[in-house]
């Protein structure tokens, strides 16, 4: 989903920076708040960031014959809210832009918007909605991570179609969707499954902390505690 260095007209670079910076600022405030209120959540924050590090380094082949990578943004978004995931995504994107020439500094705002804002927001929303209906949290987190990953790439396709609407926005969109979104479907499923693996560990070892962060229903929690 990385838009490469220099591959957006400068005014779009500025636009996406303007959109992303306030969310990053709010995310930093939220990190401070949650680590002050619940100091034991720091380890969970580290694991969420680390999960993003691992997943976004794995370039996996897809059935379309090209390679792409998962994002890992659904886990942090579900645990801490989308703005915190934005900050984690910024760290990953900076690492890749500076050391790997993957993505770029000029396109950082645009890439933070897709991987750090839209994807996490969708994941967080899906988890909240499914969790309310009482569906098992492992199934909820699967769909949250799957759609968070997929919508990250859909966002990149939309961003590029807005910047390069040739010959028209819709025809550009179908081209970029073909490149990013279709390739991404199996990888998004893989991301969903891997997020469930981590989730199963968290609900086994840290059920009280998840309850404290209000991501787990106390009702489901009591059953999983006896199970583990």
């Amino acid at each position, binding site marked *: 989903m990385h838009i490469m260095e220099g591959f957006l007209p400068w005014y779009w670079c500025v636009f996406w920076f303007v959109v992303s910076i306030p969310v990053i600022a709010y995310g930093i405030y939220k990190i401070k708040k949650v680590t002050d209120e619940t100091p034991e959540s720091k380890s969970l924050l580290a694991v969420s960031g680390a999960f993003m590090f691992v997943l976004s380094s794995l370039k996996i082949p897809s059935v379309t014959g090209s390679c*792409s990578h998962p994002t890992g943004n659904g886990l942090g978004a579900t645990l801490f809210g989308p703005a915190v995931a934005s900050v984690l995504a910024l760290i990953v994107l900076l690492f890749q832009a500076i050391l790997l020439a993957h993505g770029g500094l000029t396109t950082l705002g645009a890439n933070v918007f897709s991987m750090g804002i839209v994807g996490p927001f969708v994941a967080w929303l899906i988890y909240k909605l499914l969790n309310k209906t009482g569906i098992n949290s492992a199934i909820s987190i699967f769909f949250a991570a799957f759609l968070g990953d997929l919508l990250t790439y859909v966002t990149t396709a939309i961003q590029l179609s807005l910047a390069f609407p040739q010959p028209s926005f819709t025809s550009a969109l179908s081209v970029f969707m073909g490149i990013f979104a279709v390739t991404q479907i199996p990888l998004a499923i893989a991301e969903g499954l891997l997020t469930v693996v981590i989730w199963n560990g968290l609900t086994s070892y840290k059920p009280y902390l998840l309850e404290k962060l209000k991501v787990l229903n106390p009702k489901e929690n009591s059953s999983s505690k006896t199970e583990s």
Partner: protein
Amino acid sequence: MNKLKINVILIVLVIVIGVLPLMIFSGLGEDQGYFGGSDDAAGEVIEATGFEPWYSSFWEPPSGEIASLLFAVQAAIGAIIIGYFFGYWRAEAKYKQDK
């Protein structure tokens, strides 16, 4: 079914998702235009519109070897942190039950 069994099944499924494309396009490689990155594919479409990238990375890994080194470092940093905390939490949970 316990969570360990579920996790093993999930990881096997992930491996299947990763291996399937290699079987479908078996024998094809970069020279035939397969298994390239989707980021680069989008870059080619953009350049076809006549757009000239106006800035390029100030540093690039000088070879594919160095790039794979740095990707491995990225994955290792993440994996160490996840492994450390899961080991810590597991022992913590076990110790609490023993009490």
